[in-house]
């Protein structure tokens, strides 16, 4: 009873906070200081058509490095926790599973290449169209998920996934350090010429960095999914 009362009070408090936020809300008619800076300077300084990408990869590149690290730690911990269960069960993991349906098998044959292609498109065009490394990586991992759904016993090479992941991370950091030497600072994108706005090969190293972030994120999510699917329920 007391517990329910506390929950209700908490909900009422949160509601009151959001209500006051809503009542005090007036839409801005013009961009505020930071937003105006980004909107005016992105095109000529960074050369990326997608301002969000310019902020994520260049202006706030260090934060992105932190995000990638957090995701890496998550994948590593999931692997660490689930690997113990896997070693014990490796002998009796040959449990016979029912075949997946014809619809799922044929559909995944058709859809997996298309989903992989969409993921690659999203992160290669991260500086031009909405989306980027994180979204593209998640789409890549969803293709792996579809393959796992079709055949849960399919074996994915852990070595390949971890090599892909580490090399992508290393290249990301290396490009960042090259930015200190050849351009304005860590993760500065103007190592390569910024090119003309809207072209595929423009915005300096943003497409390269975002492609490797995409591969890294895709490899991390895939390793989590593969680890999960390889553990047997006990």
């Amino acid at each position: 009873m007391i517990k329910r009362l506390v929950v209700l009070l908490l909900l009422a408090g949160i509601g009151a906070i959001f209500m006051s936020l809503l009542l005090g809300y007036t839409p801005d008619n013009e961009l505020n200081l930071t937003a105006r800076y980004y909107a005016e300077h992105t095109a000529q300084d960074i050369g990326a058509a997608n301002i969000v990408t310019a902020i994520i990869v260049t202006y706030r590149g260090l934060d992105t490095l932190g995000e990638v690290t957090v995701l890496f730690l998550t994948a590593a911990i999931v692997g660490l926790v689930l690997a113990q269960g896997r070693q014990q069960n490796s002998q009796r993991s040959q449990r016979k599973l029912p075949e997946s349906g014809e619809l799922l098998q044929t559909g995944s044959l058709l859809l997996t290449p298309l989903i992989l292609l969409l993921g690659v498109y999203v992160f290669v065009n991260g500086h031009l169209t909405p989306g980027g490394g994180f979204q593209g990586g998640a789409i890549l991992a969803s293709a792996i998920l579809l393959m796992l759904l079709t055949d849960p016993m399919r074996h994915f090479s852990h070595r390949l996934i971890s090599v892909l992941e580490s090399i992508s991370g290393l290249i990301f950091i290396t490009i960042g350090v090259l930015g200190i030497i050849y351009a304005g600072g860590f993760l500065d994108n103007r190592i390569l010429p910024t090119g003309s706005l809207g072209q595929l090969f423009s915005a300096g190293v943003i497409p390269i960095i975002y492609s490797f972030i995409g591969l890294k994120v895709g490899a991390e999510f895939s390793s989590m999914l593969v680890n999960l699917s390889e553990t047997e329920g006990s």
Partner: protein
Amino acid sequence: MTDLMTTMSLLLAATTIGAALMAIWGKRSLPIAILAAGLVSLLASVQFLLLAAPDVAMTEAAIGSGLTTFLFFFVLGRVRGGSND
């Protein structure tokens, strides 16, 4: 934002809350609750798209609605051992 957009946003928000309630009160079966939780993410991503944030919408659709839903199903299958329903 025009009136049409506002109406659509409000309708989406109402549907999202409905789906969220369905996810919480889905006592009949867990799979329906999981699907309702995925529906919340899907509707939220459409809402983000209407609010002119396509990047966030993409993340929400791929991770919130895609990977998370199937992660729940994976775990549900593991918890049940896959033997009885």
